[in-house]
């Protein structure tokens, strides 16, 4: 599959009816708006951007962090230029406003769905399904939102591989926040792998590369114990040597002393 890189202002098509995402039409011709990869889908010419902020759209599932609790809303940071509003009425039970911080307080993370975005970019949030997914354990890792599709992989291939290889539970939000949970060293390894995915997002065969990466990291972990023993041994040999050289210094000092 040949991926065509386009940059802003590149001519994509002469047929203005085919204009898709990330393009604009001028004089009946389609041009690119972004640095990205050209995508030809369903008679549309679009551009998949390779950088950029997360802009919420309806039915995205995101991970939000509470930044303000108002009497009727939780205001959420959703890793976007726009804050999200989660209204109390969206919560399954009725809560008095003074009890709101008990349910969720500033700093709490939760998985939410974007219910509505209006033209002035007021983002309304709702629960993903009827369940209230407050994240109590685990870790939230952030990747660039444009690289979220690579974390998921073709038909979820990457994410299922990651789950299997690291024994972690993973949830990927559209906004680039990724929640992972598992044993500490597994989570550490997984966040390393996620960094790697982010850095090498444009490579082909990424899933295999990450698989190899995880394998090598694992085997390295196993090797690390004898290596540590080795290091401590080395320290021991060095300590007497140090006193040794000091002795030599003293002797030389004595020899160099003009008074002698």
């Amino acid at each position: 599959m040949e991926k065509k890189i386009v940059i802003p202002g590149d001519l994509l098509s002469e047929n203005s009816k085919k204009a898709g995402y990330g393009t604009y039409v001028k004089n009946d011709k389609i041009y690119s708006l972004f640095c990205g990869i050209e995508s030809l889908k369903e008679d549309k010419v679009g551009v998949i951007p390779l950088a950029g902020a997360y802009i919420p759209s309806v039915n995205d599932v995101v991970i939000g962090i509470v930044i303000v609790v108002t009497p009727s809303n939780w205001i959420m940071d959703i890793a976007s230029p726009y804050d999200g509003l989660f209204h109390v009425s969206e919560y399954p039970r009725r809560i008095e406003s003074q009890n709101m911080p008990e349910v969720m307080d500033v700093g709490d993370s939760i998985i939410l769905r974007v219910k509505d975005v209006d033209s002035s970019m007021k983002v309304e949030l709702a629960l993903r399904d009827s369940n209230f997914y407050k994240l109590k354990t685990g870790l939230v890792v952030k990747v660039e939102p444009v690289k979220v599709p690579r974390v998921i992989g073709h038909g979820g291939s990457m994410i299922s591989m990651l789950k299997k290889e690291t024994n972690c539970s993973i949830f990927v939000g559209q906004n680039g926040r990724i929640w992972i949970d598992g044993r500490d060293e597994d989570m550490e390894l997984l966040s390393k792998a996620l960094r790697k995915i982010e850095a090498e997002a444009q490579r082909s065969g990424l899933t295999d590369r990450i698989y190899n990466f995880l394998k090598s990291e694992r085997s390295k972990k196993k090797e690390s114990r004898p290596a540590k023993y080795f290091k401590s041994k080395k320290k021991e040999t060095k300590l007497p040597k140090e006193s040794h050289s000091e002795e030599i210094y003293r002797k030389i000092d004595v020899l160099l002393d003009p008074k002698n």
Partner: protein
Amino acid sequence: MNDKPNKLITDDGLRLDGRRADEIRPMKIEIGVLSRADGSCYLEWGRNKILVGVFGPREAHPRRLQRADAAVIRYRYNMASFSVEDRARPGPSRRSIEISKVSREAFEPVIMAELYPKTAIDIFVEILQADAGTRTAAINASSIALADAGIPMKGLVTSCAFGKVDGQIVLDLNKEEDNYGEADFPVAMTQDGEITLLQMDGHLTPEEIKKGFELVKKGCKEILEIQQTVLRKKFETPVEEPEAEPEAKIVDTESEAAETEPSLEYAPEAAAVEETIEEAEELEAEPSEEVTETVPEAEELEEIVKEAEVEVVDGEAIEEAIEAETEEEAIEAETEEEAIEAEDESKGPWKVVKDPSESGSRGENDE
């Protein structure tokens, strides 16, 4: 102060820096140099050195600046106090405020601000070294940084100046030509040739302006090509995380070749970093040998010292001993550092690079 050269253009049509009238200065561009910024660009154009960071779209503060229908674009042109011969007073000046305004307006027609209402797109331009034509260079760099930040644009903006020097119309003035020339005329345009910035300083006739415009169009076309190739190259080459390289090497050698080669292709700097890491890794694996090596050496030294003690004090022998001593010291310090390095994996390769010099200087002091 008046060190005006007699002639800014020689009889055979060459300028002070050896260019012809219609040539631009050499340009060097690096993308993504700042990790905190959403998009960034470092540009060298002749002796101009410019760093641009782009942030956004992000929440606009203070909120009264927000626009309900579009993003606000903010452009800050700033000259470093060391960017010119006489120290420039830090902070905004009449000149920098003006340049910020006209440069912002040069970008407003191409940035799709209406896609991001209530946000701000910030462009910060720092002139590190100025050599005439900084506003045009800054616009060229900003254009790339904006594309790098993933901000939707109808196209790139390119900018170039023409001027009149020794009665002749020339492209892309340098410092001397700007200072002693008769006119300077910066222009910025979109890739379709629509003018988004136009300023003039000096005196020109309409014919001269027409002639200059032909030059500027040619210059901007050249610059656009440079910008486009640099951007394409950046996004085509897979982004490499230098730290990740050696890790993969340990286990599978097959992917090693595949990994190192493309990175060498796209950035010599990255290759250099990789090399240092490799070296560091190699050294890390070795120290045990070095330690065993240094121990007998130390014994030898002791013998030398003993001999020197027993025999009549011979200055030369001592000197030798000291030399050998300092050498050993250096090696020792190195291995010691490596031990620390090995213990603390989070420390980067620079530690290893830095340390031999340190131990070396310590040796000198001992002498």
